[in-house]
């Protein structure tokens, strides 16, 4: 899962100015760290749902993606 997030999902989010890093997987819960544009996205839930769909389509696993936002200090207002 870590390889999948970092090598498949990550370049796609980076292409949108975002950043995602795998943090941990506990059972069917996958935690990721979100930076860049993702960290301040108003509709991030839609993107996390898309990641869940891709995981299911590509890996046949049903998971819940938990996103932790890490905003840059200058945008954390």
């Amino acid at each position, binding site marked *: 899962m870590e390889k999948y997030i970092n090598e498949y*999902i990550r*370049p*796609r*989010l*980076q*292409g*949108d*100015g*975002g*950043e995602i890093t795998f943090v941990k997987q506990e059972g069917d819960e996958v935690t990721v760290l979100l*930076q*860049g*544009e993702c960290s301040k*996205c*108003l*509709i*991030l839930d*839609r*993107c996390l*749902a*898309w990641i869940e769909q891709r995981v299911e389509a590509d890996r046949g696993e049903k998971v819940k993606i938990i996103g932790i936002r890490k905003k*840059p*200090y*200058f*945008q954390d207002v």
Partner: protein
Amino acid sequence: MAHIKVQRRSMRPEEWIQLRFGWLKRHIYSEKNEITTFMIKDARQVSEMNFEFYDEEFRPLKKGDMYFTPDGTAFIEADYELPAHLEGKKYCFSLKTAAEMIVKVNGVYVGGIDPNRERLNLSDYAEGRKLHFEIMGYNRSKPDDERNPESLSVRGCRQIFEGGYISVVNEAVQSLVYDIEMLLDAALSEVFNEDFSAMVIRGLDAALNLIDFDDLRDEDVIAASKYIDENIFANKDYKGSGNVALVAHSHLDIAYYWRRIHAVQKNLRTVLIQLRLMDKYPDFKYAHTQAYTYETVEKYYPEIFEELKKRIAEGRFEPVGAMYVEPDCNVPACESLIRQCLYGQSYFREKFGLTVNNCWLPDVFGNSWILPQILKKSGVDYFVSNKMSTWNDTNRFPHNNFIWKGIDGSEVYACVPPTHFITWNMPSQVQENWEAYQDKNEGGQTLQMFGYGDGGSGATEEMVELMHRFEKLSVMPKTEHTTGSEFLKKNFDGNDKLATWDGELYLEMHRGTFTTKSKMKAYNRKLEFMLRDAELLSVLRMKNGKEYPAEKLREIYKKLMINQFHDILPGSHITPVYRDAMADYEQMEKDLAEIIGGGTKYLNTLNFKRKSVTFIPDKNGNIIRKGEKGYYTIPDIFALSSGQIEPAKGGTDWISVNGNNVETPLYSIKFAPDGSILSLRDKELCREWVKGDFNKLKMYHDTPGNYDAWDILPNYKDRPCEIAVKKPLEFIMADGECAEFSVTLATEKSEWQMIIRLFRDSRGIEIENIVDWNEKHKLVKAEYGCNVLSRELVCDTSAGIIRRETHRNTSWQQARFEVCHHKWCDMAEQGGGVALINEGKYGVSAEGSTMALSLLRATIRPDPTSDMGTHNFCYMIYPHAGDAVSADINKTAFEYNVPLRKADVECALPDFGKLWLQAVKLSENGKYIVVRLCEQNGERGVVELPEKAAVLNMLEDEIGESDKIEYSPFEIITLGFRM
């Protein structure tokens, strides 16, 4: 007792107007027919015209469905039968979206839709009732323009489809909406007379009272418009002043929050939208930059290119900006900037028969002093850039329309418009421009660009409609919709009242872009010199009958120029843009190495004898420099000549090491354990060079705020960080020429090894840095407190020297706390000084007698991974007698940057005296061997040529003939030797 702020809770008149204005906008369409047959395929763009699809098949796309994916492109299709009653009538296609869409109907490019416009005229382009839609949509989390609040509110990589419609516009409502839009902006902006605002609010209130919003009727709408005409527009009591030229334009970053591959479609959409505006509005004109973007239209969308050519021929679609792209104008060297003009102008001449006489760089982060000469000799008389007026953080740039005098004395007309290059043509923006304009009495009109941008998009129908109404509003300045070149000619030519600015156009912001993304800067430098040598060697081989690889060299140069774009090379872009650039650099290096080739002898490609210590790669060498084995020696090879090289013979008795005290033939040195130099005693000149921290690595918190990759703020000095000594300085080895010392420094997250090299026969002290860099928001500088009394820092510009004060007397010097230099900088007093020579570092600061080279940053926006990982770079400290010019520091810096090339070629080029042989190439027309010479020290002189040569401008046009060159300070001369 709690304080309760008194607030007005009842509706103000202007709020009541705005509420009703919103209701009115709901009636813009008199009819909307939903298209329910949309099908979609989600994809990701992988090259300029190739896409990876998530699914093979199209899926239905219904209103309310989610569409687009991160970094996503979507292909949407639909078949629709036009209702019979609309046949022969006016109708449009409407679709509200955050994405950027190019729309084709029945095989015809009908226009573009994006967050700035939700409809396009269809009835004028589509024939018959059967309509086949092909839409290519590209969605960005960052919209074209963050200044448009509507764009911001819908940002995000997953969007909800709001449906697509065949709609009919109620022209009466639409016209009234434009009237009110303009009047509300004027009345609420606070830049116009308050009595005028009150009059407008009263008038709008009365006009809207004529409409029953429960039963909106066209005749009421027409009556409201008539009321506005007769009561607001007819009121000429409020007089404005000023004269503003309006030029439609769209700023298009070739890469930024998107990759270069995406700019192909961003540009097409922009061009298409402007062409469709021209179809609708016969008076509409538009200015578009960058030959590269025209090339992509020609290559991939030839039918649009043909339309474009027609509009260019009519003078309505205006190519502006003579350059190939809008490059950074700090870091690229002189020859790169010349090629930006050469390849840009060559394209415009070949395709459109035009030589563009202006340089249009609205967003570039400051402009080198060498530019006026380059522009003037490339057919360019005018320079346009908005940055200095709108972004300076300390001083107000004192002119808008003026003359810019370059380093050599060349002059171009310069326009730095008072306001931003992205505006949406509102009355308040026009007024703000006039109010901010500083050359009202001397400069003629002020320039206002309008159109959305950064990612293209450009002017909208609304902007044109408002512009057509401006003359009705007496309070506004007079406006004239014009082209860029018409504006420049009208206001500058023969204007002898213009002030002159003699110096660089330093931007008091974005000072971090000299340093951010360190590896890109180093690669750019390396490739600039590789290109020089590849062209030179290709010409020499051509003389022996080998074919000159003109096409390949041009292709490589163009790739380098694209990567010099002002959001690529400066480092202000997202992660994939960096990856693209590095892949390009690696490929260019490989291609150039192939062209340079190999041989048994070493060729000195410099047009002067080498006398500096040089690293020679050799697998049997005992030194590893930047991962490569080799040795140091002083090559005895004359200008443009070949020879053999051997490692220096002799033992190691030239150096003695006693703890941290070191003796060489030239210096007595006392090191500190961290590698800094406590004392550098010059045995030859009998003097001490150190005063303060010298060769001291300093790390600072670097927190410039939102413009993270762009800016360094002066407050970085307030928060230095600790760097620990992990492994103190130790002597490593010595051979007949070089001795190495090593020290390892560390922070909690990073490790920094410094290898210090001393030489038997050279004044230079080389520092190699091997860094494992894992910081966030840090800036590292190498600081040199010099024992010289100097009040100026002399910097290489790549085509001459600029002297910058190192005191902080005025706000102008205070603002220049970090500046851009090229291969070297120097501080000297009468009798001697210290130079720092680098291989790809551009940022430097200087205060008093201390200079500090900026080495690495660790920014997180736009790229959270910026500069992370390993780095390996070198620079050289070079104490010398005399000043930088008499000490030939420039030559030493060339020797440091241009390696000896292995090549078995005969070099038969004339002696050009003290002039730097900047380029030797085959002319673009194949008729000449072009030789470009550059005076770099500020001297005047004469060079006799062995034969007559054509004198060329930088576009390689013949402008004369001579066998003698009389040159002046910092002059660049281009000669053509006939084949």
